């Protein structure tokens, strides 16, 4: 066995998804309004795990956590930034993609989660370009290979230096016996609409294409000589910035560090609490502690502590933590606690002021976090109990999960205390298209794909508190249980779920969650979870004689030539 083939216990190193530009090891963020520049200069010895060096601007999860943080901060902290240039601070290499030694030694779970996260970050870049007035371009000043080219493909405009040597390539198939894992194949044919036979040639050409050939085949949008490169980057960035509707007279809100306390059996955030039991994590979402501010100015004043934003950031962090650091918690149960009317007040504010750049960012972020939830390969359940506050945008969680249960009536309060209001949910405009899934449809529309009438009817019920029976009748929850059955049924549900094969569940859930049309985004994830994750398991990629473990060893993989 090669010395590179060591089983890495990835869960030994707990990944932290919180960072700050002041702590970046790999990216430099330069703000020169109206545009910003993200320069990649990966610290070779700055890998998250031991056993590999991040040469030639190759990346591991740590590099992408910083990128994700930068993309997020640019949106919230810098309204003045209307275009973003991604480039390299290293000579010769724009980005060499995911580090192969890292992939070779990583566990399968880590590889899958790593790819998913990097995809979500690329999608966030496209989301900023499409919806935030913050358009991205790639200034490819050195070879962009594999994930490096895929990163460039996530931007709106690819400028390639024409020095007779610098190439863009997707060498995964020919070099590594895997696929480009961050949407490269899909973006070639779907986004850039490159002819499939040309894409076939490109994807099997280890060294890729450069200069006029790259341009002719639409792999890049423009080539420019080295001497004019920087000048042209600045021109293009100004051009991209020109069409933006971001305000020039507002200041950003600093994304302050999350207050987070890791316990051995869970995590406490300010608005979120996660409790681990065997194989299960319960996620408590806390409603707002104070009434919503009066207007957009009030939101800006509250900044990162504005309840929806604060809760979303915590939920986002918790989901990533659970994905990467707690692989054995196969079921996530969502509950909420709070004042329904107060939560609804925030929802109304988010709808009313969506034209405000900051509110728009909060809404777009909610969309991304809910997508992250849709794409989390765990069994997802929601329990709606008295005192919960699933209202408006927060009730999207009910339609993201695999099943939801509502407690009918109130719990038995035989001690004579005053009775709680029964559990109910409230829909709003937030549930009808403001937070689309990766398939481009709202969760409710996806849910009622075969029942357009139901969809219309529940739309008329927006604003009405729907208790257990109406919610069940309208198909908004899976089951309504009274307090006699509640505890036992829920226990049985969770026990039964944990008895199934986690792999079969991931597959089943992913198949059932995304009916309806395909989009580029949905294709990227679907292709990833089927093809790439299959290939990642196959001996031709990861077996003792497979391409990944042998990469760098000088030995050649020995492929099983049978087609499956």
């Amino acid at each position, binding site marked *: 066995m*090669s*010395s590179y083939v060591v089983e890495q216990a990835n869960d030994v190193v707990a990944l932290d998804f919180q960072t700050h530009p002041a702590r970046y090891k790999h990216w430099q963020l330069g703000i020169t309004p109206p545009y910003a520049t993200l320069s990649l200069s990966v610290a070779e010895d700055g890998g998250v795990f031991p056993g590999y060096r991040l040469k030639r601007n190759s990346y591991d999860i740590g590099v992408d956590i910083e990128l994700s943080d930068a993309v997020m901060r640019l949106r919230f902290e810098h309204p003045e930034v209307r275009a973003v240039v991604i480039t390299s601070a290293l000579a010769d290499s724009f980005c060499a993609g995911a580090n192969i030694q890292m992939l070779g030694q990583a566990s399968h779970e880590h590889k899958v989660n790593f790819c998913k996260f990097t995809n979500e970050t690329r999608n966030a870049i496209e989301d900023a370009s499409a919806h935030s007035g913050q358009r991205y371009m790639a200034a490819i000043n050195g070879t962009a290979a594999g994930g490096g080219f895929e990163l460039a493909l996530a931007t709106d405009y690819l400028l390639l230096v*024409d*020095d*007779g*040597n610098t190439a863009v390539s997707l060498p995964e198939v*020919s070099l590594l016996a895997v696929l480009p894992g961050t949407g490269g194949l899909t973006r070639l044919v779907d986004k850039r609409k490159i002819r499939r036979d040309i894409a076939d040639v490109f994807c099997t*050409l*280890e*060294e890729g294409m450069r200069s006029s*050939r790259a341009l002719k085949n639409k792999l890049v949008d423009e080539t420019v*000589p*080295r*001497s004019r490169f920087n000048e042209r980057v600045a021109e293009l960035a100004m051009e991209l910035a020109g069409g933006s509707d971001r305000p020039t007279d507002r200041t950003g809100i600093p994304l302050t560090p999350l207050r987070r306390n890791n316990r051995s059996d869970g995590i406490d955030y300010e608005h979120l609490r996660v409790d681990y039991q065997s194989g299960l994590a319960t996620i408590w979402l806390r409603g707002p502690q104070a009434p919503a501010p009066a207007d957009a100015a009030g939101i800006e004043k509250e900044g990162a502590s504005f309840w929806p934003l604060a809760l979303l950031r915590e939920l986002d962090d918790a989901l990533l933590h659970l994905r990467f650091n707690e692989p054995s918690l196969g079921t996530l149960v969502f509950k909420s606690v709070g004042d329904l009317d107060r939560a609804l007040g925030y929802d109304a504010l988010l709808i009313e002021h969506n034209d405000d750049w900051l509110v728009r960012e909060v809404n777009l972020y909610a969309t991304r976090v809910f997508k992250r939830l849709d794409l989390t390969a765990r069994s997802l359940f929601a329990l709606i109990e008295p005192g919960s506050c699933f209202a408006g945008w927060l009730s999207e969680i009910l339609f993201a999960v695999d099943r939801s249960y509502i407690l009918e009536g109130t719990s038995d309060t035989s001690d004579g205390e005053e009775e709680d209001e029964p559990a109910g949910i409230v829909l709003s405009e937030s549930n009808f298209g403001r937070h689309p899934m990766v398939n481009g449809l709202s969760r409710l529309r996806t849910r009622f794909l075969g029942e357009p009438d139901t969809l219309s009817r529940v739309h008329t019920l927006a604003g009405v508190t729907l208790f257990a029976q109406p919610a069940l009748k309208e198909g908004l929850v899976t089951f309504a249980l009274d307090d006699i059955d509640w505890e036992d049924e829920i226990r049985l549900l969770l026990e039964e779920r944990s008895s199934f094969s986690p792999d079969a569940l991931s597959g089943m859930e992913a198949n059932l969650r995304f009916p309806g049309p395909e989009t580029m985004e949905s294709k990227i994830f679907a292709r990833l979870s089927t093809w790439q994750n299959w290939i990642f398991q196959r001996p031709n990629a990861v077996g003792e004689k497979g391409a990944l473990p042998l*990469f*760098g*060893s*000088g*030995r*050649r993989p020995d492929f099983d030539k049978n087609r499956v």
Partner: protein
Amino acid sequence: MATVNYDTLIPNNVNLSTDLRLQRALEKWHPKFLNWWLQRGPTDFQTNEVYLRTAIGVDRGNWAKFGFVRMPDYRWGILLAPAVENRKIPFGEHTGEPAWQEVPGEYRGLIRRLLVVQGDTEPASVEQQRFLGHTAPSLYDMRNLFQVNVEEARHLWAMVYLLHKYFGRDGREEAEMLLERTSGDEDKPRILGAFNEETPDWLSFFLFTSFTDRDGKMQLECLAQSGFDPLSRTCRFMLTEEGHHMFVGKSGIERILARTCQVMNDAGISDPTDEGAVRALDVMDLPTIQRKMNFHFSVTLDLFGSEISTNAANAFTAGIKGRFHEVDIADDHRLLNDNYPLLQYENGRFAVNQVPAINAINARLLDDYIDDCENVVTAWNKTIAKSNIDFALSLPHRAFNRQIGSFADLNVTPAGGVLNDADWAAVKHQFLPSREDLGYILSLMKASLSAGSYASWIAPPKNGVGGKPGNFEYVRITC
């Protein structure tokens, strides 16, 4: 096969006249090459007749003839060393299988990349040296310069032949790109760093041909082992020519040292570090030569790439690029279980660690190269010792002044001391040529163009070339 056909436009021993496709490709490339030679080759003397050798065969011994030729009329040709009958692949996972006469599809990209990188260096050095004719210290040296230039250009032809013959459209495109990139060009530089450095003076030229062409030799030696037989044969013949280039460098430095020592002795200067006194005599002082040597040697080490290299390992396993003197190495030539001692810097000190030999192909070649260079420096020091001057040149530590490889982030003195940034900044000028050093060398660069005369800073050669004496008019300046 051994006879070269000079009847056609392109002299060759590859039966070009029967390969119309190849002939068409090369004939289309030919005018572009000539244009390149005129635009980026030697800046002047293109119309002068130069006493050059031209390959007329590929058999050992009697392969070249000497005669006067104008450089643009030089018969650049395609010459392969004779085929070895039943040659087997000597290393890698195909060891013992018959050598490939055609490119194996699975290695097409790998071989093409190697050819492009090698091919890119050949015209690069011609470009780097294009101004040197103006400051030639003698007609003998000018002739040597042009000999090196035309043969490097022929090496370009050799690589282009392989690209055209075996790599289809991609190969033709790469062949054109070899003429488009230019040494030191801001927009389209040559691929490897050292080939974008200037060669502004003759000391640089002799050091370049001593050290950097020696890297070329090592690379060609490794490619000459290739299981892809046309590549092997091409490189074997290139090595025949390369020997002269290194001779030019090695003997050039020897003559500079001899001259400096002689002038010092004549003037009674015994302290070689008295740079001022030595420079007053219009010769190159020994410490400056050492600093220049430090520069050229360290920049050339970077050409070997990372000590631990996946690409080199892949090329070895594939049977495409072997090790120096591969067939003489006593091992299994597969390296599946072997280790190799590698100098590494860890925990604040240098240590030799055992690493998988297959990953250390570049490191091993670097070791072989440094051994080869040590012999050259030993010979130079004999010249100094003969003059009884107390000075010895020495190769700097391999970690000195590196930009590529595992030592790139370190500040290492020629003696191997590791310094922090501040200390390094304070002493760096002692080890590398200063602007003043370079200015002084440039001030010596005055052409000496009458037959038999030599510039102040260099001794005449012991022998002439091509059977002619040192005072022969190697370049017909007057006609």
